């Protein structure tokens, strides 16, 4: 070894003053911060400002608020939304909690199957579910009504999807996976040892459940209920398809009407405030609940878990799981498929009713349908890529404390979580639709809005991944002579490949379905598949509509498969996924 010979060298050019404080990476940080201002801060600021501005003149005024809350209809819509959220969340809880407990803690048969079916529910866009349920429970013509009439000989069926109850059921059916995810995550942290401890001290199975297991999972269940509530009040698709024909309004459909001709964005902004306020408030409550002490998180591996033996009841549990799944998956998809291959869906299952015409039409004949699918995938890919890169950069700045007050950046990344899609879209409209930018109807505004909407998913995943990475990995690069950028390129990026792919998919998949922000921002050439489906539902073309919805679902499957291969089968059903 030539150690002695070289060790008399002096270190190269030590310049102690500002060296190391400023380098090229700082430009990158500044760029990222600027992007965040564009994506999050400015739409939010414009939303609030616009609500106080007179149309055209831009003078300060309160008249928008007077208009927005000036009619009983508008106020009713607010209360309808609150009721809708509450009932949908409760019903979703009834669906989700037993399933979560059965899957996570018992010897119920078909646990893997149940998980799969919950996943299938989760990746069914709300508008697809709503369409399927119109086929199932439309008054008179709906399949459930027809079966009922056939079986009982009655004159009319009992089901009417075009009602408040109908809307509650449809929303609950497609949002219960949130509660399922939260609850299984918590139950899986309750180790058998905790339950054993209760058993040894003399508590039976039911008492243990009541006194130990449930209380430990309760905050998670409440958290899931809150998320479901917020999902329900922020949802645009199902209310638009069901509430409007049923002649009642909720906040989101009312907002849509303020956005109709002529666009009254100032009034819409004013009207969006309660939705925003309720969301912020409830998210705070949810954080408070789940951060309370005595909650079953962060207890390490949770030890060994043995399933609780249900005995004869295991088949009852299984039956319930299949009942829920048939409402959310089996029945809807059977009739979606039927309708997509039918000349007329009402004519039922017969060979002479079979046709490929619907697929042919939406793929090749319709002027914009195929393009809308391509648009969806392009915009979603662009948004997912942008969101992953931005949040990775910010998570890096925050975890390594590279700039003062870095936590604010993290907070901004998470902030869109409390902004419902429709409200976000109004903010984007207010900020970027007017000149000089005039982005309304461009692909860019859709991509920016999607990126913003899914920043929280990206951030949660990126910072979890970075926190799992020991900073010494990077310090080792630097002490051996490599720069920070080299550490990012050679060590951080390769090690995070997998989690970043996961985050990308977790954004990409929902972004291909995003409707609530797209509906306010699309233009004639930038229609996305979800908007297309919504348009078709207004025209009543259920056969075409089913075909398009199925195409969208089928295109998602390979992505799901990649995600499961790279990250494990439950990658979409983890808590970081929501």
């Amino acid at each position, binding site marked *: 070894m030539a150690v002695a010979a070289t060790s008399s060298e002096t*270190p190269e050019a*030590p310049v102690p003053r500002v060296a190391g404080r400023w380098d090229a990476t700082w430009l990158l940080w500044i760029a990222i911060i600027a992007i965040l201002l564009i994506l999050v801060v400015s739409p939010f600021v414009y939303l609030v400002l616009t609500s106080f501005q007179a149309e055209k003149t831009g003078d300060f005024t309160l008249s928008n608020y007077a208009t927005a809350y000036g009619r009983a209809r508008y106020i009713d819509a607010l209360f309808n939304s609150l009721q809708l959220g509450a009932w949908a969340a409760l019903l979703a809880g009834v669906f989700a909690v037993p399933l979560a407990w059965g899957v996570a803690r018992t010897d119920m048969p078909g646990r893997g199957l149940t998980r799969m079916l919950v996943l299938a529910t989760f990746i069914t866009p709300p508008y697809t579910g709503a369409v399927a349920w119109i086929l199932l429970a439309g008054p008179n013509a709906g399949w459930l009504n027809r079966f009922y009439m056939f079986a009982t000989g009655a004159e009319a069926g009992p089901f009417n999807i075009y009602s408040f109850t109908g809307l509650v059921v449809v929303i609950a059916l497609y949002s219960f996976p949130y509660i399922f995810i939260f609850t299984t995550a918590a139950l899986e942290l309750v180790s058998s040892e905790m339950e054993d401890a209760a058993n040894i001290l003399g508590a039976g199975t039911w008492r243990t459940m009541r006194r130990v297991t449930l209380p430990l999972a309760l905050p998670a269940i409440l958290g899931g209920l809150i998320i479901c509530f917020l999902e329900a009040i922020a949802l645009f698709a199902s209310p638009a398809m069901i509430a409007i024909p049923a002649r009642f309004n909720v906040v989101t459909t009312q907002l849509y009407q303020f956005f109709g001709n002529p666009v009254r964005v100032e009034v819409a902004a004013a009207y969006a405030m309660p939705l925003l306020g309720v969301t912020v408030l409830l998210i705070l409550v949810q954080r408070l609940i789940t951060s309370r002490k005595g909650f079953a998180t962060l207890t390490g591996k949770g030890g060994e878990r043995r399933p609780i033996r249900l005995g004869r009841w295991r088949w009852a549990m299984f039956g319930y799981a299949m009942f829920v799944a048939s409402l959310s998956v089996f029945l809807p998809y059977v009739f979606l498929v039927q309708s997509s291959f039918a000349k007329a869906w009402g004519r039922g299952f017969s060979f002479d009713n079979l046709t490929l015409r619907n697929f042919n039409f939406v793929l090749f004949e319709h002027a914009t349908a195929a393009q809308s699918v391509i648009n969806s995938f392009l915009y979603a890919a662009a948004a997912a890529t942008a969101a992953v890169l931005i949040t990775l950069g910010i998570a890096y700045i925050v975890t390594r404390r590279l700039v003062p007050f870095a936590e604010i950046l993290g907070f901004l990344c998470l902030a869109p979580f409390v902004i419902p899609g429709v409200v976000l879209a109004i903010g984007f409209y207010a900020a970027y639709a007017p000149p000089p930018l005039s982005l309304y109807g461009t692909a860019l505004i859709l991509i920016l809005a999607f990126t913003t909407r899914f920043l929280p998913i990206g951030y949660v995943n990126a910072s979890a991944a970075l926190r799992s990475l020991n900073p010494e990995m990077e*310090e080792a690069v630097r002490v*051996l002579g490599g720069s920070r950028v080299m550490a990012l390129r050679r060590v951080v990026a*390769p090690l995070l490949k997998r989690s970043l792919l996961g985050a990308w998919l977790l954004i990409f998949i929902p972004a291909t379905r995003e409707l609530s922000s797209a509906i306010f921002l699309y233009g004639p050439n930038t229609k996305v598949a979800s908007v297309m489906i919504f348009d078709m539902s207004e025209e009543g073309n259920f056969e075409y509509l089913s075909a398009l919805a199925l195409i969208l679902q089928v295109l998602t499957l390979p992505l799901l498969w990649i995600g499961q291969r790279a990250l494990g089968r439950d990658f979409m059903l983890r808590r970081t996924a929501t």
Partner: protein
Amino acid sequence: MSKLVLKNVSRRYGTFEAVADFSLELKKGEFVSLLGPSGCGKTTTLRMIAGFAPPSTGTIEMDGQQISAPSGVVPPERRRMSMIFQSYAIWPNMTVGENVGFGLQVRKMSRAEIDRRVDAILDVVQMRNLKGRYPSELSGGQQQRVAVARALVLEPQVLLFDEPLSNLDAKLRRRVREDIRELQLSLNLTVAYVTHDQQEALAVSDRVIVMSNARVAQSGRPREIYEQPADLFVADFIGDANILDAELISVNGGQGRLNVLGVELDVPHRNAEPGSVKIAIRPESVLLNAAPGSNAATPGEILKASYLGAHIEYTVQTTHGPLFVVDRVTLEPFGVGTGVWLGLCSNGVTIVPEPSR
């Protein structure tokens, strides 16, 4: 000339002082350990030397040139130091060879030269045959050796260790620390070594710096630290010690006559005045006898006894309070409750200077 000089360095986080007024000179080829309980500031000091954190006050110089000051630091990548991390920080996405060759690659050496040097250093740590493996296929000890090889291959000016052995089991720890010392001596490396394990520090170092509460408690050769602890903290932290009050009867030259446990013995007086003094007695220096004698003057009773194979640990109740005793001699262990007579052997008994405050 000193290789590395830290002058009155301190590091504050808000109001918390992690390192206070720390000064150190490292000679070329010297092995210095920073030893102390967790939170004493030793790792912060090491990170300041590496350049990951600027000092809040004070300066650091290498070869007479300033490399750290509150106003700015030479970044770690330009210091020509190497560091071995507590977690090893072996990159799992690179093979052993790629890990070790990384620093050479950064220095834009030719492929052939990189290969030659990587092979040579892998020979030194006896890992040549595992060059193509990935870290996940290696044991903890092997990973540790990769970390050492990766640091050594750059022929660093200064080599820094941050608790490098804390993730190894006890037997391996002993062997690896011997290897590290051997390498350091044969390559004449300048080393700063952070550890909380006092045995490790005593075993490998030329000099040990004991830190406590962000400050230097004592700095000296391993024997000085153990035999003449500067204060009660050092006495208790390095090895075990029974701290007792005793009487210094007289002072004569460098020696002082001490009366403790009914025995009189001569120990270095360490500038103590005759009168009441604090002393530290190593547990192995207390002798247990079944019967009273000239060096067995104080009666006691066995409170606890633990058989540990090579020795027996006793807690003995005496008039001076309970004493912790390690006995390697007794063939027939004393049972709990047995009466014994305590004596002392003079090495392992030392006067501990009282804080002057």
